[in-house]
């Protein structure tokens, strides 16, 4: 091991390609889809699917053979994987293009990440192969309910085993499901996706009874009840999903079908979050970078140079603000990179994952807010995308654990406290 910050060649090369994609396929359409919520950018989705297949990327879903530190299988690789580092870098660049678009990039997103983190080998095979199929395919993760957001342990969705048919019967209402519609509704242009639905198999067991289930697109009894209208990331659909006596096969359960005294079910969710939080952080930092670059560009056009190297006392206020934004952005990205590097190297990264998310949530919102503020009338105008990035960036501090919830996770790690000791 060593301390090194050289961007690996394959990552640098992919970034170049994705930058063009971000400019040509995303930013050019950003405004349109911001103003036409619930329309679907098919061009982008189809292009990305084809492009990623051509690049051998296949999908943005973590490749199962690369592992993520949680799948337990024996691995015989010589060189440490850079799969998560690549993924985080790609996501950062796509989000630099448009976070809303990024969230509907074919490849499985959070749904696939959940399968990768909590599924067994057969399940990974069965559910993840589809993302490199003919058509763009998506998957989503359904945890949140109207009465259970941050407090995931109080979800009310139930899963009961029908012993006659050996099927699970799911009942409940999920909300705020990113890409829920595109993962579940059977559009002609899309491959068959799935939802990963969290439910309790034994409400009396609390967290220990929580499990996730793969629900295939089109499963009877499951309905997209509503699509939300949002502050930002409007190209990404956010669905409410109702499940009424929805039946899934026995082996759609991720993790053990029986309840032990331990909290293994919930750990599946937590393992997923350890893997996905730095990825969400990366997406927030992509928008933040877009905003900071735009700010610097506009300042330069107007003859304002940032004089790096001057002591604080000699800098103008604008220079100080810009420099502070750069410090925040760079350091937040390094935290993110470290968290995914740990995942690639099979080191437990619960602390670092949440740290990166805390920091990115802060930095994403602060930088976009600053940029709008400093550019005054330009910042507020819809002629530019900056005001949209301000609206888009805010989600970073909310989903995948709010800033507060991630602070709790960090604090518990730092203090060696359980959830009961620090709530």
């Amino acid at each position: 091991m060593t301390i090194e910050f050289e961007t690996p060649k394959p990552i640098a090369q992919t970034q170049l390609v994705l930058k063009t994609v971000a400019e040509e396929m995303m930013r050019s359409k950003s405004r349109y889809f911001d103003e036409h919520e619930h329309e679907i950018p098919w061009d982008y989705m189809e292009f990305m699917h084809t492009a990623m297949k051509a690049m051998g990327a296949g999908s943005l879903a973590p490749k199962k053979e690369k592992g993520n530190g949680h799948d337990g299988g024996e691995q015989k690789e010589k060189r440490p994987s850079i799969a998560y580092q690549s993924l985080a870098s790609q996501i950062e660049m796509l989000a630099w293009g448009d976070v809303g678009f990024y969230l509907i990039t074919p490849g499985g997103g959070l749904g696939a990440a959940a399968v990768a983190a909590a599924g067994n080998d057969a399940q990974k095979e069965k559910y993840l192969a589809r993302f490199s199929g003919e058509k763009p395919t998506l998957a989503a993760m359904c945890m949140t309910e109207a009465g259970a957001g941050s407090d995931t342990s109080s979800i009310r969705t139930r899963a009961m085993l029908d012993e006659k048919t050996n099927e699970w019967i799911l009942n409940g209402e999920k909300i705020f499901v990113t890409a829920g519609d595109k993962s579940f509704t059977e559009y002609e242009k899309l491959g068959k996706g799935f939802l990963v639905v969290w439910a309790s198999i034994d409400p009396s067991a609390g967290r220990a009874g929580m499990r996730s289930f793969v629900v295939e697109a089109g499963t009877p009894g499951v309905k997209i009840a509503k699509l939300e209208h949002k502050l930002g990331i409007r190209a990404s659909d956010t669905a409410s999903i109702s499940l009424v006596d929805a039946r899934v096969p026995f082996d759609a359960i991720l993790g053990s079908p029986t309840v032990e005294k331990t909290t293994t079910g919930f750990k599946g969710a937590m393992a997923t979050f350890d893997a996905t939080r730095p990825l969400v952080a990366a997406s927030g930092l992509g928008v933040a970078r877009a905003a900071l670059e735009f700010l610097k560009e506009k300042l330069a056009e107007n003859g304002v140079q940032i004089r790096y190297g001057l002591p604080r006392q000699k800098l103008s206020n604008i220079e100080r603000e810009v420099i502070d934004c750069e410090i925040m952005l760079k350091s937040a990205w390094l935290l993110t990179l470290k968290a995914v590097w740990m995942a690639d190297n099979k080191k437990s990264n619960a602390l670092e994952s949440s740290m990166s998310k805390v920091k990115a949530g802060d930095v994403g919102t602060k930088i976009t807010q600053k940029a709008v503020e400093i550019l005054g009338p330009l910042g507020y105008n819809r002629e530019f995308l900056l005001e949209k990035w301000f609206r888009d960036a805010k989600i970073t501090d909310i989903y995948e654990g709010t800033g507060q919830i991630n602070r709790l996770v960090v604090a518990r790690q730092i203090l060696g406290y359980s959830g009961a000791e620090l709530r």
Partner: protein
Amino acid sequence: MYSFEPNEEQKMLIETVGKYAINDLRPVAREAEEGKSLPPKLVAKGWELGVLQASIPEAYGGFGDRSAVTGALAGEELAFGNLAGALAVETPNLFALPILLCGSEEQKQEYLPKIVEGNWAPYTSALIEFAFDFDPNALKTTATLKGEEYVITGEKAYVPFAKNAEAMIVYAALDGVTQGFIVPKAAPGLTVENEAEKMMGLNALPTFRVRLDGVKVPLANRLGGASGHDFERILASMRVANAAAALGVSRAAFEYARDYAKEREAFGVKIAQKQAIAFMLAEMGTEIEAMRLLTWEAAWKLDAGKDDAFIEAYLASMGAADMAMMVTDRAVQILGGHGYIREHPVEMWMREGRGFAMFTGFAMV
């Protein structure tokens, strides 16, 4: 590749230096601060760890190659024990490293073996000036070429161990560009104040005002020889060192506050169980790690000779200074009234914490 783990050699260094920091520096920190001096034996012991010696190639009497990353790791570790002690141990770096990085062959031959093969000795450098808008790239101290000599005039402040310094590098503006000049102890026109500076913190580190009234040095004493040198390289190294020291002090304050919060009870629970305290700690821990990585990256870029290394070092130093203020302030806050009392070290760390905004020039890696 990206990689975030020190190599085996660095790990061993961290361990050795860390032991010294905890077992030697930390226990005398308070007494040294109140008594305004460090036990010479303590500094000698730190010198014998060989951090500087390991950055100087064998050809010049050392046993290794300089790495800013390794220097930053050691710097954090030392400052974790005690900042004044750390800076004292590292004071000869201020003289030796600019020569290693930018000196002429003759300068290297003349000074490096003498410094690294000997006992700790006060070789130092004079950069800071006593002005609110002090700017290392716009010095008020000037050097003027007169015939076969440079004539240096001006006033310097906060020069560590200037009183008995064997020699110091004085930074001065030569036609508006900052350049270093080797000024020997007995140079006529060089006056060091008798009394050490009285500062808000860092009182165990003796630093002095230095006046230069037309001090004459031969052409060969210009750092790098006749053609001079790129001061940015030196400044960047000072900035990384400043950031690293800020990390050490911040980590000390953070860990102390964390441990205290797990012991102290209020309203029937440990104060750490209250989110107001726990969230402060979470943010402190996160910011320390964030600035550590930025510092490492800056150091790595210096070692790798990257174009943006100087900017990165600037950002790291500034970011770490802000972080240190935030963390040390909160450490006092977490201890409440007890934090304000000089029995606990947190108030001392808070005084040091503010200093990183101006400590650039006190250390090099």
